[in-house]
């Protein structure tokens, strides 16, 4: 029996499910290996289906979404979050540091129809998650590796090392050391292939914090290289602002700016 697979979307930009949609022939191949039962963008709509594997993109930011994710959890054997939104609340979690309701009231003609939860939260704050794939967006390599592992009946392997390791293997010249750019690679989880330094810029941590990230030491180094406290805060409070240790580190420097 082929495993049944669903791809669900919550508050997001659609970019992570594009890793499937952009996969070309691999997508067609995937369809021969699993039964895709729900994947709205690809043309399959059976949201309530019971599945073996559910991929979830997007964060939970409305009461309806909260209801929906609970149903999905109940219907899914293995639930995997894909991307920063689902895994850490994503870029829209930047609103968590503000009074969102006030924003909405001040500007929408009929704010009562805009139902938003106070925070944009990762899936794991609402229901149990089996595996989390970081990245804004995730890439096809990550996704298909997980699918392959599950097809082979083994636990997926998740990225543990820092972006620096990938950067060095690509033999990219370190932008921090050679140009003083405030690169977040040393505290960021690998998986992207160290894209940013490869195109000549600093990493902005879209793959989230690496395990045991020493953000304090890196922030001190940024400060020593002349970055203003408020700018240091903004670096940590960005794509994954809702997750630790980025949240605390950012808040710490935000305080110092005032």
């Amino acid at each position, binding site marked *: 029996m082929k495993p049944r697979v669903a791809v669900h979307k919550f508050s997001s930009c659609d970019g992570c499910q594009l890793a499937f949609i952009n996969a070309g022939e691999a997508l067609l191949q995937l369809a021969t290996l699993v039964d895709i039962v729900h994947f709205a963008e690809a043309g399959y709509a059976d949201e309530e289906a019971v599945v073996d594997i559910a991929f979830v993109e997007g964060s939970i930011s409305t009461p309806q979404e909260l209801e929906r994710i609970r149903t999905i959890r109940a219907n899914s054997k293995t639930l995997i979050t894909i991307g920063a939104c689902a895994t850490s609340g994503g870029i829209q979690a930047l609103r968590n540091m503000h009074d969102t309701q006030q924003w909405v009231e001040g500007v929408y003609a009929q704010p009562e129809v805009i139902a938003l939860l106070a925070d944009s939260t990762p899936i794991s704050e609402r229901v149990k998650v089996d595996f989390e794939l970081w990245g804004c967006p995730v890439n096809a390599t990550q996704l298909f590796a997980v699918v392959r592992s599950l097809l082979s009946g083994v636990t997926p392997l998740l990225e543990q090392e820092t972006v*620096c390791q990938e950067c060095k293997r690509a033999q990219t010249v370190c932008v921090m050391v050679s140009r003083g750019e405030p690169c977040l690679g*040393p505290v960021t989880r690998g998986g992207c292939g160290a894209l940013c330094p490869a195109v*000549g810029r600093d990493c902005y941590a879209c793959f989230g914090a690496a395990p045991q990230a020493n953000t304090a030491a890196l922030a001190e180094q940024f400060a020593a290289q002349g970055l203003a406290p408020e700018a240091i805060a903004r670096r940590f409070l960005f794509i994954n602002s809702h997750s630790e240790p980025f949240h605390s580190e950012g808040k710490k420097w935000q305080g110092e700016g005032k």
Partner: protein
Amino acid sequence: MMSDSTFLPQSGLAQLLTELAAGHRIIGPQVEQGAVQYRSLQGAAELPWGVRVAQQPGSYRLQRQGSERAFAWANGPQALKPLLFAPRESLWQVVKTAAGLSFSETLPPPERLAVIGVRSCDLAALALQDRHFLQGASPDAHYARRREQLFIVAVNCSHPAATCFCAASGDGPNAVSGFDLLLDELDEGFLLTPGSEAGQQLLAALSVSGVTPAQRQQVEAQRRAAAVQQRTLPSSSLAGRLLELASSPRWQQIAERCLACGNCTAVCPTCFCHSEQEVPQLDGEGSEHLRQWDSCFSAGHSLLHGTPLRADTAQRYRQWLTHKFDSWHQQFGRSGCVGCGRCIAWCPVGIDVTEELHALCGDEA
């Protein structure tokens, strides 16, 4: 050794490269992405003429000095390591058929490489990697394949960086062996010293002349000057000493600064740790077994029964420093550090191994 040297005027460099190119792909230093790097070299014009390098802990900057020299820089971010011990490569493949599993080795295609500009520290590192990968019951076929094809043109360092301490480690700045041909660069040309049969043959094809006493004197002075370096190592051997310091509070202090990013191990020309990885095809019909550089700073490096044995950064930093400067003696009969200073310059937060060693051993730098 300078006795069998000859002189090649600067204009002769093109000839040297042409001769080399006859049998090899030439790898030479070039400025790319703001650093001097080993890349495929098309001609002498691509060399980093007039480039110097200022290095400090956590900092590497190119400087244009307008001098007439091509090799007046200290080392770049990578040594010979990536050329022989590839950052990521396939070891073998397996195909699944009805009959079973069929394994096949994936060796790199043979390619004759000539590298020009190699420094003495990197030759010492190469010798260590040779020992690690080529000796023992199971020599590494991938490394061996590349190593057999390598022709080395070394250059004595005339402008060591502030991070260099090859004089202290005993690996430089002047090369004594391990090269096919050795250059000492002067403003008007090069002193050439052969180091192998192949190097001798190459020399014979060049229009060289005898070395004048003035040139000889200049080279001698240059060699002496390069050996004057700022950084030092603790005066007595560290064999067995660091392990005894396993519970020093210093490790915890370093861990507060260390990012555990692994840059130091990646740029280190002797570090050999790698992990093996399986990359199966989506359809399940075949799979590839790769290896890639790993670091003792990564969690997976010491994983045992699901948790890392070296749980925190203090233990990982201790593993790095202790292995490099102490356990290495037991494994290879010498320290694993060749004094290139890369881990100092390329550490994003500028942690300096020489400073840490002095502090740990309780003596002054």
